[in-house]
């Protein structure tokens, strides 16, 4: 059973850190604050159902419960969100619907701890480009679960930018399931200052399902953050790609644990993983522990990790054209993080990301 409790909304104004992001670049958006929709432009998108969690639970409980049972995630924090959600959203793209414009969702924590559940269902032959931005405005404990279902021949691009402050704790579990010829891309931009534990699980459950999980993360000061990506191949001819890009500075510690798991008989599957990292200070830590768990011979698999300081030759090259060391480093770091930055298709959101990177690397 999934439970939902509604918290009272104290103030229904759009926060100052969200207002400037709603510009002409963004046609389809929804703002959720402490579980309440406080602004939106998505009343009528042909073939798309978007509702607040409590509303959706009364209208689509069967669908939600059925999908939820499929995931069957044993983590305590997952169960916690199921039992205690106070914020959430259900997005259902119905069969054969291609959503042209990107859907932007802003999730704001204001008065209460955030216990949030997002469910994105893409039926067969659908396409959705989804971008979400999470921000907290008061110190809080934040528990987030998101679940994506990608039907046959459907395409979901799921991009997420998180900005939680230093006094907060962050726990995120993302689950994705992909069917035949479906494609699920996660672009995860983690620019929080919070103590973070973030897990992304993708299950490729039918042949020819495909997924990309790209994560960029920056840690600074005494921050600790751990990112786990598990891509499970549960059918033959499935492809899973994991890419991690990390930057750690000051005395922070950043860990990537990417796992590609190919079960027996899942022939002709591809599991690839790449980890890259830049360590900006002597006392910062950045670890990547790429893992391949493979129980089948007829597969293609690779993994690698390259972690080091900022490339001296790149720095020299940029400086030889007159860029100050600081500017050269800035450009190199932003370039390094571009695989996810490029997925943000609004300039305002791009600058949120770039400014956060700036802020988190300013003590070089």
């Amino acid at each position, binding site marked *: 059973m999934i439970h939902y409790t509604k918290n009272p909304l104290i103030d229904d104004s759009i926060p100052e850190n969200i207002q400037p992001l709603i510009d002409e670049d963004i046609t389809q958006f929804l703002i959720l604050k402490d579980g309440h929709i406080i602004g939106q432009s998505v009343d009528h998108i042909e073939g798309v159902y978007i509702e607040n969690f409590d509303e959706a639970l009364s209208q689509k409980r069967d669908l939600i419960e059925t999908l939820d049972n499929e995931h069957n995630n044993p983590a305590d924090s997952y169960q916690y969100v199921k039992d205690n959600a106070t914020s959430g959203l259900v997005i259902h793209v119905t069969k054969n619907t291609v959503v042209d414009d990107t859907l932007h969702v802003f999730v704001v924590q204001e008065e209460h701890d955030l216990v949030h559940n997002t469910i994105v269902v893409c039926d067969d032959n659908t396409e959705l480009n989804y971008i979400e931005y999470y921000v907290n405005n008061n110190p809080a404990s934040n528990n987030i679960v998101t679940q994506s279902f990608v039907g046959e021949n459907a395409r979901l691009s799921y991009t997420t930018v998180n900005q939680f402050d230093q006094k907060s704790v962050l726990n995120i579990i993302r689950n994705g399931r992909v069917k035949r010829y479906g494609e699920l891309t996660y672009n995860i931009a983690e620019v929080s200052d919070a103590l973070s534990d973030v897990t992304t699980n993708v299950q490729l459950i039918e042949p020819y399902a495909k997924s990309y999980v790209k994560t960029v993360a920056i840690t600074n000061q005494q921050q600790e953050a751990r990112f786990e990506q598990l891509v499970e191949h549960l059918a033959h001819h499935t492809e899973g790609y994991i890419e991690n890009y990390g930057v750690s500075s000051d005395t922070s510690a950043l860990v990537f644990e990417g796992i590609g798991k190919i079960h027996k008989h899942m022939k002709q599957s591809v599991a690839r993983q790449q980890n890259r990292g830049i360590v900006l200070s002597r006392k910062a830590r950045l670890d990547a522990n790429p893992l391949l768990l493979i129980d089948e011979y007829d597969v293609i698999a690779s993994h690698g990790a390259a972690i080091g*300081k900022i490339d001296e030759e790149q720095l*020299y*090259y940029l400086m*030889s*054209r*007159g*860029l*100050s060391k600081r500017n050269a480093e800035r450009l*190199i770091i932003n*370039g390094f993080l571009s695989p996810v930055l490029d997925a943000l298709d609004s300039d305002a959101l791009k600058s949120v990301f770039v400014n956060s990177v700036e802020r988190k690397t300013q003590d070089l």
Partner: protein
Amino acid sequence: MAKLEIKNLHAEVEGNKILRGVNLTINGGETHAIMGPNGTGKSTLASVVMGHPKYTVTEGEILLDGDNVLDMDVDERARAGLFLGMQAPAEVPGVTNSDFIKTAMNARLEEGKKVKLFSFIKEYDKAVQDLKMNDDLPHRYLNEGFSGGEKKRNEILQMKMLKPKFAILDEIDSGLDVDALKIVGENVTGMKSDDLGLLLITHYQRLLDYISADRVHVMMKGRLVKSGGMDIIERIDSEGYDWIKQEVGIEDERVLPKEDEERTVLGTCATKEALDL
């Protein structure tokens, strides 16, 4: 008039003495060429003038209009008017060519001032056309996946945009086919003026068919062992370097014996891979 002076320059890399007393003065408006076989220290000279952090100057000085260049950081040297077209420019993923050059141009302006976007784009597009490069160049990442020839042209393009006082072009001709060499040659020649001092580094005379030099120097064993006019080039072209070696009285023109060189090359690869912390 602008003046670049290199006096009795000695420099080391990784504990090896490479430059062993280089003397060279270039005035604004002059074009000099340094020729010499591989491994004689030509690129090292270029790197030391630009300030590559790996090289240590142990003796001598470099002056730009009387100012001590060795006191300046790499970026200050660039802003003071030095430019190095590199033999092997770095690739920088995620940074577009146009963002990069725009940032470099802004770095030359007063704090808070910026180049005007419209005139920048116009100028950049023209430079792209002059060098017969693809239209998508501005949006491509800096040198990433570029062929050898594209990298060389991109160096010249940057030079066009940045308009340095002194430019050193290190083997700007290697990796270029005849057509590309002609394009690069024309563009460099087109930039010649009384305000530009040029130093061309090459080991083929063919570059000098396209860019004429006022003075030619030959480098061996980390020093300029012979200087003269274009006639030197003709003789090198027909006879090679042996006559110069005989004149100077050396057998091996390299700074380091061959084995050493192979070892250092391997060494650099290995350190690049290694975790540095």
